[in-house]
């Protein structure tokens, strides 16, 4: 592989890594709060992207549709937490996994039902020609990377410096004590779901121009996001972000060297490898089980 091609692969790896980082972050947020892994995260993002598409079809300008979609995805996340996830909150792990799988299937088939399974192009808000005349990275890749970074910074500021962010962290870490100081833990979990939905929507809208819009567009991305979350440590938001970029670059470089058919296998190997060698990932807490 020539150096040029390598640099190009690294850049597009970083661009898709930003998407994986976002979805992984959404997964980690839900995991931290409830110790559930949301298998339907990718499908919810896909559905939000369809909402954005319909809004644009209805004549709405790109950025208006973008922000409206994010808001709708937020509400959707809250509603799903309240209606579907809440009843199984303390159920055995098998029931929870099955409910999430059920959700995945329902959202996927609803999208197919409403919007059909035909592949649709999705517009990018960024110019078609590369910025600054560079040869390595398209402006969509650069733009989506920038948006991902903005979203991540906003989240960091929100969780680090606002009372609501603090309350949400408290509710996730220690529900009992949080309840005692007057935090409404149930609503904090729902808010977490809402935020996860919104982040997923942004990721979906950003990735749709490259993978095209169709009901199964997120299944591979969800897998990379799982790998990213596990590499970084499934209870570490910062780790998930770094993991996203690592997975993105790895996937692209390996795909270029060994053939694109093995891209998903990279995720599989990473997932199994991390779980076997170091289940806590790079930055996750090491759990010790008392017998």
């Amino acid at each position: 592989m020539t150096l040029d091609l390598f640099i190009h692969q690294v850049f597009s790896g970083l661009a898709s890594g930003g998407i994986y980082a976002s979805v992984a972050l959404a997964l980690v947020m839900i995991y931290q709060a409830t110790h559930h892994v949301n298998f339907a995260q990718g499908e919810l993002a896909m559905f939000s992207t369809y909402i954005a598409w319909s809004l644009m079809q209805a004549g709405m300008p790109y950025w208006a549709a973008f922000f409206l979609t994010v808001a709708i995805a937020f509400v959707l996340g809250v509603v799903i937490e309240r209606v579907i996830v809440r009843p199984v909150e303390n159920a055995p792990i098998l029931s929870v996994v099955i409910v999430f799988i059920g959700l995945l299937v329902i959202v996927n088939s609803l999208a197919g039902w409403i919007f059909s399974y035909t592949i649709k192009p999705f517009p990018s808000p960024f110019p078609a020609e590369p910025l600054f005349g560079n040869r390595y990275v398209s402006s969509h890749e650069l733009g989506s990377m920038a948006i991902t970074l903005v979203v991540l910074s906003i989240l960091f500021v929100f969780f680090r410096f606002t009372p609501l962010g603090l309350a949400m962290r408290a509710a996730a870490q220690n529900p009992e004590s949080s309840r005692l100081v007057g935090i409404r833990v149930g609503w904090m979990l729902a808010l977490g779901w809402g935020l996860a939905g919104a982040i997923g929507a942004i990721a979906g809208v950003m990735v749709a121009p490259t993978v095209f819009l169709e009901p199964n567009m997120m299944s591979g991305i969800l897998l990379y996001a799982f790998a990213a979350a596990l590499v970084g440590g499934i209870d570490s938001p910062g780790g998930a972000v770094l993991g996203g970029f690592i997975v993105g670059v790895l996937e692209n470089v390996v795909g270029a060297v060994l053939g694109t058919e093995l891209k998903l296998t990279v995720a599989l190997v990473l997932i199994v490898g991390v779980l076997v060698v170091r289940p806590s990932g790079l930055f996750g807490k090491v759990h010790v089980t008392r017998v």
Partner: protein
Amino acid sequence: MKPPSSLRSLPPEGAVRQQPGEAGSVAGSSVRKIGALALLIALACVLPFVVSNYRVFQFTLVLVYAIALLGLNMLTGYNGQISLGHGAFYAIGAYTAAILMDKFGVPYWLTLPIAGVVCAVVGFLFGLPALRLEGLYLSLATFALGVALPQILKYKGIEHWTGGAQGIVITKPEAPEWSGLSQDQWLYFVALAVMLLMFWLGWNLLRGRIGRAMVAIRDQPTAARAMGVDSAMVKSMTFGVSAMYTGVAGALGAIAIQFVAPDSFTIFLSISLVVGIVIGGLASISGAIWGALFIQFIPNVADEISKAAPWAIYGLFLIGFMYVMPTGVAGFIRIALARWRRRRVP
């Protein structure tokens, strides 16, 4: 370094109550139960002569799915290890059969045990690292396997074996002269025989020492180890046996459908197997048959509404059953029968 202990929560309530006794209830000691079983088998033998060839083909697939579901149920229902990627083992079984028949001219019946052995080995090997993954983490790893497999099957390096995205077409076995059966009917009886054999073996395995060890590991892993159950061995062995069942089913399915291609084995196949065991009944042998009937015939009915409808219905049933009937159809029948008996004996 283990995943948090809170992940190791109890399986569904119905599954806890589920003991090897259920296995006994399929063909328990009472004469009446044996009679009922014989009647069912007799009905299954008459079936292919009273319905059309296409229906016979569909019922063959029901038998195939029943074997796969029993395999998955051993792992997930009895042993509590969640697999969301069992479609991968089904695919490996199917491809083993197809490659053996297509490239080596192996007779179809011989491909079944070979596919079983291949899948048992692969499953055992996958089960070894999976031992360290509890609950949620195993479901993640198997989900990844299920999603990645169709791509692996398309890999250029193995294209001359797998036929790449095109897949492999295999010829349907002819019924022997003496039987006087059509191809579909013959295949149905082959599937029925295999299924009865596999269920008999499974029933023996699950009600015995190993079956109890599997349930013990699911419900009380620490206590089971303290009692001397070799947890690691039983878990990876269960994974192997489960994969073997699913692999044999895959091989049978490939022969019945006469075609394998990567896109028939997406993650949705794995999910429909999960749907099957949840609807049929977790940790129940007879549940495998109910689940198989469900995943075979509900899509046929629902397809008329929309292409997406079967999956919407699957999803609704999955969530609905988890909320209101976690023991599945088998559990429901068990409860209904128990009530009925209580009413008859005042």
